[in-house]
């Protein structure tokens, strides 16, 4: 009798369990919480990109989605593997910081073909038909502001004033957008003469070496504009070592904490404050809006870059206390 009951109860139990599982799956697929957002980042070796990744993931989670961070380690092949995994694993959106403006296009296209929206953050891909939207720092406008401050603060001499420019990676769009913004202002003042323009790959140590050699060739320069803050710190180190900290003004870009502190201490003149938090949050919000049916996103959404200078550093004193 007991055996008979067991045989009758077991199939009913299995049937009910099966129905619950199927019902549960159906319910969860219709729920917001079931959507998965991948955050694929060029590198997590740089604290700036860690902030970008963690803010994007946190914002996606706060909107009720699952979020997972993938580190491409500045390797396009690894980035490609991440995209394949993300597509196969059924992720619903990708918040993406590309490793290469050209090389990453194919990965974004793969996701697009799979019906997965991609929102680029901070770095762009050189295609307007690949990503759903690209949320990028307004590098050009930020450097227009720096260029204006550069013109205002550089010495005025009838014979002209010499300066140098240290570029970032020559293959990076941000490098040239920054340089073009700066020159759109400074080149209107022929008294300011650029005597050297060299790349230091956004790297502090390379900038130190490059500026050391520039100072040997042109010991009379009075200003150095650097395409990022790491290079500005390297340039300042070279200027200090040459005993010319009072004669040569150094300008950076990024809003890094050490440069904000250096502006506060009167060592560096100015920087352009980028906001990785704003870019990451906007990308996650765009993904949320996409899930809710929105499709008309701007292809490129600029994020304002604020000038932080000797003139307004008091407004940004809180940033010198960031961890």
């Amino acid at each position, binding site marked *: 009798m007991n055996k008979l009951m067991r045989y009758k109860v077991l199939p009913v139990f299995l049937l009910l369990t099966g129905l619950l599982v199927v019902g549960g799956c159906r319910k969860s697929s219709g729920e917001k919480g079931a959507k998965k957002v991948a955050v694929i980042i060029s590198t997590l070796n740089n604290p700036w990109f860690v902030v970008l990744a963690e803010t994007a993931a946190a914002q996606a989670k706060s909107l009720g989605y699952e979020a997972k961070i993938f580190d491409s380690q500045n390797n396009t092949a690894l980035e490609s593997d991440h995209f394949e995994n993300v597509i196969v694993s059924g992720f619903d959106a990708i918040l993406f910081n590309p490793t290469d403006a050209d090389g990453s296009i194919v990965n974004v296209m793969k996701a697009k073909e799979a019906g997965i929206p991609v929102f680029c953050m901070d770095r762009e891909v050189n295609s*307007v038909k690949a990503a759903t939207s690209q*949320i*990028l720092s*307004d590098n*050009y*406008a930020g450097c*227009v*502001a720096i*260029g*204006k401050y550069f*013109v*205002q603060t550089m010495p005025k001499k009838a014979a002209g004033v010499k300066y140098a420019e240290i570029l970032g990676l020559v293959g990076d769009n941000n490098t040239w*957008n920054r340089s*073009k*913004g700066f020159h*759109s*202002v400074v080149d209107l003042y022929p008294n300011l003469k650029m005597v050297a323009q060299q790349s230091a790959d956004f790297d502090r140590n390379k900038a130190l070496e490059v500026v050391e050699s520039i100072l040997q060739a042109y010991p009379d320069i009075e200003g150095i504009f650097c395409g990022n803050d790491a290079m500005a710190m390297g340039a300042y180190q070279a200027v200090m070592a040459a005993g010319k900290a009072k004669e040569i003004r150094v300008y950076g870009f990024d809003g890094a904490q050490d440069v904000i502190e250096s502006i506060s201490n009167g060592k560096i003149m100015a920087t352009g404050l980028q*906001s990785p938090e*704003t870019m990451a949050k*906007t990308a996650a919000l765009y993904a949320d809006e996409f899930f809710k049916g929105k499709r*008309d996103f*701007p*292809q*490129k*959404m*600029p*994020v*304002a*870059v*604020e000038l932080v200078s000797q003139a*307004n550093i008091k*407004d*940004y004193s809180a940033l010198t206390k960031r961890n």
Partner: protein
Amino acid sequence: MNKNGLKYGVLVLLLAVVAYNSVYFRKLDEKKASAATTKFDAAAYADAFWKTKLLPDSGKAIELNMLIQELKTDKDKAFEAHSHALSIGNLRYFLVRGTGKITAIGDHDVTVLLANGPEVTIATEYVFGNAARDASGQIRLTDFDNTMDLNNVSSEINKIIRNRVVAPFKASAKTGQEVSFIGAIELNREHLHTDAIEVIPIHI
């Protein structure tokens, strides 16, 4: 033999026709010129925007004194109601109007004491940035795929201001003179300062 000759002759003629129609030569400067026609013309866009949108829209500019009061009373409400910007972030732009007396003429700006209000400066040297492009809110970001086109629009509008507004103003401005202006200003929503407002002039 004659038959073969005819056959080969027709074949050669056919190949010659195909080859002639397959390859053609154009001067490089003609090719470059035709490519340039598809390129975005920021100067033409800026000129049309200036004449058909910005100047006609300048009637909607808010009185600068009133804006300053609103910013002091409810900053967020004032930014929400009167500011525009194509970018996300703290930098916002306002289309403003004012009347006042010139109190100083400097190398880079003209100081104007607003009637019943504070002193502001009208930029006459450093006319840069996105204030004039963005303040009216008339340009839509979705109309542009390329941000460099937008940057160039700003640059061309500022060029128009330097040539058509600033140059005649600098030539005629005198201390003590009464002036009415319409212009664009940039304010930082997070770090707001209303005591050192710089106006990019659009009409004086």
